[in-house]
């Protein structure tokens, strides 16, 4: 009986040790505490360092400004990031890419695509010009795609509907993905 008990305790101890080792190993592999999945911020207020894509002083290329952004959850974080883009740059004589009066009405995330719905000011108050429009569109797209690995595509809407162009030149009819070459002023 005693021997049986000792064997049982031994087996239980070994099992517990193995389980602990498994958990520890998993933790070491992901470098994250259990329960947190990469990029999943749902329900957790999060503060993130984000690269915001604005324009250089000559309006030739995109130029990055790093800023801390806090959101209530993932979609809210995306919305706050778009708000920061609309707020504009603060240093380095960078130029804003979107009209000051623009507001994002809704930001929605599903299946790797962020849908950003702007009010009409993004079109009506945009100064115009082909490259200025390229920089406007891809400041939004690059910022969301480059900062968040879970975002592959950005669909821009104006007043809730898909539009052929932002202000008459650049195609925004479908979801777009980032163009990092715009940092050196080139499309590709």
């Amino acid at each position: 009986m005693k021997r049986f008990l000792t064997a049982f305790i031994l087996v239980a101890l070994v099992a517990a040790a193995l389980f602990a080792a498994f958990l520890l190993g998993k933790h070491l592999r992901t470098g994250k505490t259990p329960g947190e999945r990469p990029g999943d911020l749902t329900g957790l207020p999060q503060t993130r360092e984000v690269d915001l894509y604005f324009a250089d002083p000559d309006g030739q290329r995109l130029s990055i400004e790093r800023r801390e952004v806090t959101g209530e959850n993932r979609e809210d974080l995306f919305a706050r990031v778009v708000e920061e883009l609309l707020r504009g740059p603060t240093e380095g004589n960078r130029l804003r890419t979107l009209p000051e009066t623009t507001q994002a009405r809704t930001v929605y995330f599903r299946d790797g695509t962020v849908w950003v719905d702007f009010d009409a000011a993004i079109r009506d108050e945009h100064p115009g010009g082909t490259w200025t429009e390229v920089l406007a569109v891809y400041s939004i797209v690059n910022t969301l795609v480059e900062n968040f690995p879970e975002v592959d595509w950005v669909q821009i809407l104006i007043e809730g509907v898909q539009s052929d162009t932002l202000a008459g030149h650049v195609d925004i009819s479908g979801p777009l993905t980032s163009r990092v070459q715009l940092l050196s002023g080139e499309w590709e």
Partner: protein
Amino acid sequence: MNRTLIRKAGILAIIPILVFLGAFLASAEASGVLIRNGNPGGKILGSLDLQPSGMIDLASIMDLFKLRASMDLMGDRMDVVGQSGSCRLLAGSPLVLSRGLFALLSAPVRFSGAGLSVPLDFLTKGLPGLTGRFMEMDAANSILTVGNPGTGVFSGEKAEGLTRLASFIQRDQYVPEKILNPAPKGLSVVVLDPGHGGRSIGAKGSSGTTEKALVLSVAEKLRRRLEESLGIKVILTRTADYFVGLKERTAIANNNNADLFISIHANAAFRREVDGIETYYLSLGSGDARAMEYARVENEALGLKGGPEDEALLEAILWDMAQTSFISQSRDAAALIQESLVAGLKGNDRGVRQAPLAVLMGARMPAVLAEIGFISNPEQEIKLNRESYQEEVARALYNAIEQYHRGLLRGEIQGGRP
């Protein structure tokens, strides 16, 4: 007695038929296709003229086989209906689409002032499904034999093949317009596109200059120069202050078989000091969205079911890719225009650039967009407002177009359209 009379009458009656047949055969040999009934006796149904390019006017086929057709507003696709079925043709594309099936013609369907023309193999690939009659082509003698009713079906491939086909086209192995490319020929039709118009104002200067008014004025001055000095046909996509859609602008150029499409715009930036000149041509891989939509269909192995959505998707892909075959000519034209504008206006050279520009996507000819100067820059705005400066802009654009024209004639630049 009676019998010989009948025989004699029969022989006499056959003579004109033979003469008639002989004449038809002779004319068929010259430049046409003889259409013969497959029944014993082989009644001649008529003949079709073959154009020097090897194409046949679709209207003549429709007359002969009693087909009806409807063309869409943009004038770039046509639904042809016969007794047994219908098919859709897309101008500039070699596809015949018919209820979930497609056939690939030897050359793209072409739009000309008179209507659509189709390559010879449309007779065997498209007609059977429309008429319900089997068609056999004797290519050596240019005789098409027509089977009995109920013997013909549309012999296309399953529409799942559209997926493979579209990726095939996308890889640029298929270059439709080059198939019929003839000897060097200069510009005959140029379409000028004054940007914006109507509710689309475009950029605005601080003293009130609008892009839509400025670019229309420049386009009109350029038109005059081109007509007077180069003697070519010039068409403006708008001639006053009204709204024209972006696809409509390209459709105007496509329907007029333009050799060159130039969209004229004035620039703006968020900072007043920014100034200079830029010229654009379309970036490849534009229509990111379509490419993705397409990849989604392919990756998820949903397969195309050949429904109207698939045809619509394919059409969208073809529309987006229309410009792909002309990218190198468009780059040449953009370089000439940029160089000439910078030199002629002593402007700041902001370079030739590629961008996903909606107005260039559907163009089936070399197509560029010129940003002639920044009206958001107050000094530039004053200049651009001057008639004399607008004449200088028009002259610089004219010089570039003339150089492009000469380049085409000398064969240094490969021609766009056949």
